[in-house]
């Protein structure tokens, strides 16, 4: 059982660290918010592993859910909402958000 916990913690830790680096270097801001949310979700699983189920519940609901919701909505207000990395094919969302900026 302890061996299993060790492997789970190792995989989660590597996932969280690489996702944290990704959140700071990736160009698309929405992808960065998603990577930060992955860090929060891995943290919730680690809390459950460390026998803190109440903290894990709160982290999953507030840290991974509400926080990324706030950041994503703020991206719309900041005009950085962009689904595609390539700016050649301007999709509907970026076009509409661009129109909202001008207004």
């Amino acid at each position, binding site marked *: 059982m302890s061996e299993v916990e060790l492997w789970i*913690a*190792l995989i989660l830790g590597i996932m*969280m660290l690489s996702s944290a680096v990704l*959140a*700071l270097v990736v160009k698309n801001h929405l992808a960065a918010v998603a990577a930060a949310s992955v860090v929060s979700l891995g943290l919730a699983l680690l*809390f459950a592993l460390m026998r803190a189920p109440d903290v894990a519940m709160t982290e999953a609901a507030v840290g991974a859910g509400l926080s990324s919701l*706030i*950041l994503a909505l703020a991206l719309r207000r900041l005009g950085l909402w962009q689904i595609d990395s390539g700016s050649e094919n301007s999709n509907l969302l970026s076009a509409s958000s661009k129109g909202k900026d001008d207004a």
Partner: protein
Amino acid sequence: MIPGVTLELILYVTALGLVIIGLAGVVLSSHLFRMVLALVIAEAGANLMLVLSGYRWDAVAPILMQRAEQPAMVDPVPQAMVLTAIVIGVGIQALAVSILIRIRQRYGNLKRREVAEKMDAEIAASAGIRRDISQDAPLGERPLSPLPAHTAESRGGDA
């Protein structure tokens, strides 16, 4: 698994790595939104380290049971503190994001260097001093405007 590698070691390395990555992102990022994200990551690492301080590998979750012998529990006090810290962290994040929205409304941009430049210009304008004197940019970063005649004279006189 390699002997000597325990669960605590892995978790400490993860927590320290998250804090270091977050602080490096706060210092090095050139976009203000990335700064908020880095702050979130550093806060996650700090929370993990706090919960880890009360962790015991042979203990159960801190729930009291009506039994004759209560098994050993992990420390519930850091867990309660972290429960508060998570909620406060989301509040701080919402505050930072609202400040970002105000900055974009005022300066139209979120690049750190441009916002700093415009803030410098505004401060200099409101204080009534010339900005070329008050700024301390390293050479080659921002080309300075040519010095007026009286400044060049006084410099020549000093040297």
